[in-house]
């Protein structure tokens, strides 16, 4: 007797672990940038977060009697992204609780890899954000000398709440306030692009994130529709509402969100049309929250909101089956 199986009998090299580990490699530039700009504490946060995620995945896997899926690296991604979404000054228990919540509750209890409704990292971020709002909105200036080094008043030792990130400044004082902090407009763009500004450790450096995103796009692990429509919507709304589109593109977690979180396979639609709609929706919600909301940033909320709509989008935006008349 020979082995029996259904066709096809050959397979491409694609595998879940290959995708996930490439994704992790793509996050490395941003991780390096986070350490460069925020010092070793950023690294500690990342290590703690990843370790918690991995251990939680292992323990919940054993408890729920699931096949242990550690080797596919998805827990590492979640852990890294959770850490990326935190200011450098958070106490160490914040990433621990965040990663635990993301893996145990958002991912494993909903059925594990492939079944979660919400992006675990983002849900974790929102959870810890509302759990410890002061800690999560205390921003540190980057270590390197920049326009922000003179903002000593925004150091986390002083109980300032939401006036440190560029987006918060834009919200409070408008463009004039930004220009006084950064000096000139070009200087502001440069600092934002490189990542020399306060913010979550993984989101500030657009350069590093774009390097990783380039790798993901080249290896076809993520597709262009979601990020492109997301960013395009943001630009369009900025132009329509008279805001600076480049500032809004480079500040906050938009690049990280558009390329690394909105594109999460499990929680985004599957058809090109659905992906574009998803991206447009993310952009809309982001800009509404940024311009009209109470908090300065809206990327995580917008992606989570669209996550909830993804199954619906999949239902109504199907690919036209060839030969079937609609």
């Amino acid at each position, binding site marked *: *007797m*020979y*082995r*029996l*199986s*259904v*066709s*096809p*009998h*050959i*397979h*491409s090299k*694609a*595998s*879940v672990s*290959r*995708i996930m580990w490439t994704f992790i490699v793509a996050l490395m530039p941003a991780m390096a940038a986070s350490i460069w700009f925020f010092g070793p504490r950023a690294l500690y946060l990342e290590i703690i977060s990843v370790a918690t995620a991995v251990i939680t995945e292992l323990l919940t896997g054993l408890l729920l009697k699931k096949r242990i*899926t550690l080797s*596919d690296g998805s827990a590492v991604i979640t852990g890294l992204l959770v850490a990326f979404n935190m200011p450098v000054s958070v106490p160490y228990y914040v990433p621990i609780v965040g990663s635990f919540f993301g893996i145990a509750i958002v991912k494993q209890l909903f*059925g*594990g*890899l*492939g*079944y979660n409704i919400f992006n675990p990292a983002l849900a974790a971020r929102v959870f810890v954000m509302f759990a410890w709002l002061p800690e999560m909105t205390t921003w540190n200036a980057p270590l390197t000398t920049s326009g922000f080094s003179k903002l000593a008043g925004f150091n986390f030792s002083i109980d300032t709440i939401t006036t440190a990130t560029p987006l918060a400044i834009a919200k409070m004082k408008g463009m004039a306030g930004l220009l006084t902090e950064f000096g000139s407009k070009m200087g502001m763009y440069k600092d934002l692009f490189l990542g020399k500004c306060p913010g979550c450790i993984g989101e500030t450096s657009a350069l590093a994130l774009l390097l990783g995103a380039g790798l993901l796009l080249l290896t076809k692990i993520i*597709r262009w529709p979601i990020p492109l429509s997301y960013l395009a919507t943001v630009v369009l709304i900025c132009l329509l509402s008279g805001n600076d589109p480049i500032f809004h593109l480079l500040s906050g977690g938009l690049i990280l969100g558009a390329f690394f979180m909105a594109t999460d*396979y*499990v929680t*985004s639609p*599957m*058809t090109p049309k659905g992906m574009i709609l998803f991206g447009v929706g993310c952009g809309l919600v982001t800009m509404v929250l940024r311009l009209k909301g109470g908090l300065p940033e809206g990327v995580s909320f917008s992606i989570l909101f669209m996550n909830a709509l993804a199954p619906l989008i*999949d239902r109504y935006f*199907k*690919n*036209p*089956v*060839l*030969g*079937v*008349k609609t």
Partner: protein
Amino acid sequence: MWYSGLKIKTFRTGGVHPHEYKGLTEECSIINFPVPQKVIIPLSQHIGKTAKALVKKGDMVSEYQLIGQKDGKISANVHSSIPGKVVDVVMACILNYQVLSVVIQLEGEFKTGNLKKDEWEPLKKEEILKRIESAGIVGMGGAGFPTDFKLSPPPDKKIDTLLVNGVECEPYLTSDYRLMMEKTDEIVEGIKIVKKVLGVRTVFLGIELNKKKAIKKFKDRLTSESNIHVVPLKVKYPQGGEKQLIKAILKRQVPSGGLPFDVGVIVSNIATVYAVREAVLFQKPLTERVVTVAGTIVEKCGNYKIRVGTTVSEVIKEVGIHGPIGKVIMGGPMMGINVSTVEAPVMKGTSGILFFSEKEARSIDYSFYKPCIHCSKCLEACPVNLNPSMLSILGEMEKWEDMKGYHLQDCIECGCCSFVCPSRRPIVGWVKAGKALSA
């Protein structure tokens, strides 16, 4: 380049690029396979009704003798491929399902050589069709659609084009390629015969660019023929699928549930065209075909002209296998069916027999599939634009009826979705089960 001036075509939606492995047998000329001691000839090697058995246990048969009578419109004659004695007429396990089969033990003399060649030009259309019918010719690309039925489309369908399928997009397989290289003139003659039967003006011969020699050969041969065009095609699986080929060459879309003649096209495979010629000129029934035997553990890979009914065990004996066999696949690796026993016979639609080593077989183990991560790779690969991800999830939950809502019946089972799936899900298996269980 030499083929400049020819427009290179392909289909737009989906498709994958598996490693070809054609080098194993590409340069192997067709060799006659020795006469087997025993053949198992299934009476259903085609789509439609099983042929009626005309022989019983103990009967003596001669080569080319009719042993299965066509039953109804969609059915085909079956002939003995060797002279001998009928050992048994039983239900035998063919491609993992039971089919009534005639088992013949070699005995007596071959009477080959007395086939005389006719001229086909004076023959009437009806006479040609009758000869094709009595020779039991079926589509030799795999599906096994009776050719006489295919070549007599309903009168309300106007056929304007004949497509000859020389694509052979499955990896490993080179049997059609070798036929094209070695029997160029015969194939052109066969094309003309089919063209006459259908009364069409234009014929396109689609060949993928990985068979440049064949393209060149046919292009040179067909310079004098104004209505038969060689179409080079970009290499992409599953271009050999009827609907994909029609889309690639003619940009016409076969409607869901329809057949090629709904858009005025008939598609015929190279091997079938060759068999048609033999049937019409020599009145020779379809009892042998060219089969690619390949695999990394096969000692004498090659293209063999094998008699229908020859069992895998005879093939193993002849070609020599080193190392344990993990999988035996009848057909190509993408759509072929793997068999569990060495008693499985070569049939009219068997274009290849592939032997995989234990290691190669174990590398694709669908019993350890992972959950769908919704990566949408399968949606991109699907040549019909289905949602294989959803089909697989519904299949996993055994919701066969719900699968119909996702156009289950339009699936061509090409395997592109499983091929690219990072979670290695047996999507095709679920689709096949769904088609069987939701009916």
